[in-house]
């Protein structure tokens, strides 16, 4: 599956992915501190598990704390 993650085109070895799965697969740092945008829209944390990603979706991981990985 091809996704645009933080502005870069990435290919993942999976036919379908949720945001929860992508957070792990992309080894996102400090996932508890990150805000996720899917195609420019904020996604509630509670929906990470059921937000299915489509081919060429744009996903952005944004940090509002500015630093401080636990």
């Amino acid at each position, binding site marked *: 599956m091809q996704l645009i993650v933080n502005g870069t085109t990435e290919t993942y070895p999976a036919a379908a992915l949720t945001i929860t799965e992508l957070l792990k697969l992309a080894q996102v740092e400090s996932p508890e501190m990150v805000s996720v945008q899917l195609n420019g829209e904020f996604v509630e944390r509670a929906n990470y598990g059921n937000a299915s990603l489509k081919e060429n979706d744009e996903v952005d991981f944004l940090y*509002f704390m500015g*630093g401080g990985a636990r």
Partner: protein
Amino acid sequence: MKGFATKAIHGSLLKPEAHGSLRPPVYDSVAFEFSDSRQIQLAFEGRKPAHAYSRITNPTVDELEQRVRLLADAFGVVAVSSGMAAISNAILTLAEAGTNIVTTRWIFGNTYSLFEHTLKPWGLESRYVDMTDEKALADAIDDKTRAIFLEVITNPQMQVADIDHIVAIAHEHGVPVVLDGTVTTPYLFRSRDHGVDLEVISSTKYISGGATSMGGLILDNGLFDWKKNPKLAPYAKQYGPGALIAALRHEVYRNVGACQSPHNASLQILGLETLSLRIDKSSANAISLAKWLEKQPQVKVVNYPWLESSPYYARAKHLFPHGVGGILTFDLASHDTCFAFQDALRLIRRATNINDNKTLIIHPSSTIFCEFSEEQKAAMGVSDSMLRLSVGIEDEEDLIEDLQRGLVAL
């Protein structure tokens, strides 16, 4: 970890420390380097959790923020250079020209000055009400109101408003409550449990560990839907509940430059570790001194919320069951009597801080409030015969002996 003191002492060391240091290191560096160009780009875009420049984030300051977050169960915390920086950054983030905040004249003199002398010329209106008059409060709120601002216990009037009811009124109108919790800290008052949206704290006071350093804290309790605030709505679209912290970090706090130094953050982390011990002792001393002063014939009135004579006694016992901290005020006969009393003291220091380990005294009318007219001071509840005592953690009998010395001089 459940207890406040345990969390304060063993709170988050964010990353394993290279040498096993039990104290968080002081990262005395302005800038931090990156392995390649892409990594520094991602950090600047907010897409990588990394420190780049200490005006924006610093690892030692971050440790303080995370430890306070843990203690208060807050959603996010930003540490700033002073308590006034916490208030100004919070208000600048929430409001803008053409909007208003609803507050009270019974607040710290410099806060009133910020609202009236600094922010008013930029187009922000401050509406002043008696926070114990709930109808007046509700009537003052309109569709341009961006915050209700009050102090947890007003300084120096020692008023305790019905915070729970004020929060209910504010939320009915879709407005967040900003509470200055300096004199209680999350140890005596957990603002999140009372629905307060933002808490600002001068960590220069109790938290610094004994007047060691300047600092301020902004705590977002994660309760308010920032989409309701027109200025924060674009941030809410990107960051959801992190909108206010993001707006601070990426705009107001970053651009104003009121960052806390890593040295101060290190001192304040150490201060946090003994916070509960010091607040317990100063609160115990304060109630003893308040009761003693109440019995002295030269003293006209004593204001301390845990005195049964206080009009706020029942409310203070309910809101602050573990104590109300170390600030009390009392009235003598006149301005001159206050000066004579202060000048006779040998142990208690004449100084303008609060919540130091040392007991401090000041005549608010001639100092903190000296820029205001007599009429303004009257409206602010500051009389010429009032003294403010910030009770420290010394031995009670020595403090009473010194107060006795002051009264003998009258």
